[in-house]
């Protein structure tokens, strides 16, 4: 019931080759190729409708690629349970009757197996994951009682309980206040020490430049991929964001892009 494929660790943790995806007769992703090294933190930046969520869902193995491929450690994502997709907070039913610990335990289901019930060691795993994200005290809360930042931390804990090696986070910073954003970015730093590879979709160029190893600039096509200094060039930003970008005299980049979902 639950496939597990072996990781070819001499291959990149993620290798995307000539990926094209059509969504309702429209090209959502067009001939994308890139690869990631284990432990990297990458920001995926682009306007609404740039295909960020689509890219993540193909990499997670939830959407099939139209053509081309996405490989995780040398094989298609469909056999891996080491990829975590963290949903946008607006996509979640926060009134669902589950506690924080229940949600984090969901991450361990692939490990429990068919007809398996959580054992003591699984609950210990869940509580360690909650400790890592600083949420141990809130483990019995209903999920609707959490703040935005806590909701995001809970999903990171769930990905840790899943023993994910590749975390795909869809707009985790959207709608959070500044302290919550900073806390989350710090936590992403901790994840690197655990060897977790992180891809984060974001609108915020400044944060992308400050907190991530590389930036992937996306607008259906891959506009640029590299360190911030290389990617955040005016002509590349205009290619990604079109007329919605303004660069003021101080060199500060402003994106006129109000809405936070694809």
């Amino acid at each position, binding site marked *: *019931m*639950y*496939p597990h494929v072996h990781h070819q660790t001499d291959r990149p943790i993620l290798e995307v080759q000539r990926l094209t995806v059509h969504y309702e007769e429209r090209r959502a992703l067009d001939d994308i190729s890139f690869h990631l090294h284990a432990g990297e933190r990458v920001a995926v930046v682009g306007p609404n409708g740039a295909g960020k969520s689509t890219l993540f*869902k193909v990499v*997670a*193995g*939830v959407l099939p690629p139209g053509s081309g491929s996405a490989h995780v450690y040398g094989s298609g994502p*469909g*056999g*891996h*349970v080491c*990829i*975590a*997709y963290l*949903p946008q907070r607006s996509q*979640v*039913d926060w009134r*669902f*009757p*589950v*506690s924080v610990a*229940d*949600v984090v*335990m*969901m*991450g361990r*289901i*692939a490990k*429990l197996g068919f*007809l398996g*019930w959580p054992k003591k060691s699984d609950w210990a795993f869940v509580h360690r994951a909650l400790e890592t994200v600083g949420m141990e005290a809130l483990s019995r809360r*209903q999920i*609707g009682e959490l703040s935005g930042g806590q909701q995001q931390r809970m999903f990171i804990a*769930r990905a840790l309980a*899943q023993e994910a090696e590749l975390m795909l986070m869809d707009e985790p910073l959207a709608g959070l206040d500044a302290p919550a954003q900073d806390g989350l970015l710090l936590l992403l730093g901790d994840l690197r020490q655990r060897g977790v590879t992180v891809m984060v979709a974001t609108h915020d160029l400044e944060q992308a430049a400050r907190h991530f190893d590389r930036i992937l600039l996306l607008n259906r096509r891959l506009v640029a991929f590299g360190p911030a200094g290389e990617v955040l060039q005016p002509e590349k930003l205009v290619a990604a964001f079109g007329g919605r970008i303004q660069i003021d005299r101080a060199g500060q980049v402003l994106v006129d892009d109000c809405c936070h979902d694809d």
Partner: protein
Amino acid sequence: MIAAMTIEILNYLLDPLEYAFMQRGLAAAVMVGVVCAVVGAYVVLRGMAFFGDALAHTILPGVAVGYLLGGGAREPLFWWALGTAVAASLGIGAITRGGRIKEDTAIGVIFAGMFALGIAIISTVRSYAVDLSHFLFGDILGVTGEGLLWMAVFGGLALLVIAAFYKEFLVISFDPVLAATLRLPVALLNNILLALIAITVAVAMQAVGVSLMVAMLVTPAATAYLLTRRLQHMMALAASFAAFSGVVGLYVSYYVGIASGSAIVLTATLCFGLVYILQTKKRNS
């Protein structure tokens, strides 16, 4: 004085139990209530109330054909209901996945068409008004011993499957994308859940009829939803509300002389109303 009152109350409760049909009716009401409530928790959380209502109505032509072929016999009807419900449930599931029209529109079209077909078939029989009302609104006091046995077997089966796949059903209901990344067989699990709703509909048909079915699926679960924040508590509480409503409803029906299905549903609705008002007051204070 108090002793006399206690005896009086006991007599009120025990008198109806002298009749075998009341004993069977109470047993059926409790079983149907518990199964509907537990399965109904998923119906409520997944927003499938309309699907449940439609599915219940869609089995009418199957039941009608069984009724004609069996010459009015009641026992075979359970099997006809079960077969039609499972087929309709998986069929509606397949059609709505096609995605050419909106899901609720597709369900609406099929549901009304099948329901009309069922009424057409039953209306070819002369005494149809009485029998039709049993199919529509239930006839819990007409449950036979054999009927009760099959209710118990299939209701128990539904509860067993829910216990076995508890964590899987929880994930496909809360976060289907997570279910897919954990490589759960999401389509298969969805179909199992649809089949469970179908079995529940067949089990409950004789108790509340196709028209009141949705109340048994939704009302106790919704009442419990207002009170708890954990799924397993919601299921247990919903089952208690449903069993309580079944028993109280039947007694009310016995003493006041109103239709048993509607008495059960009205009791459940009253519970929901009370809990809703109390919770709203608590939240505002």
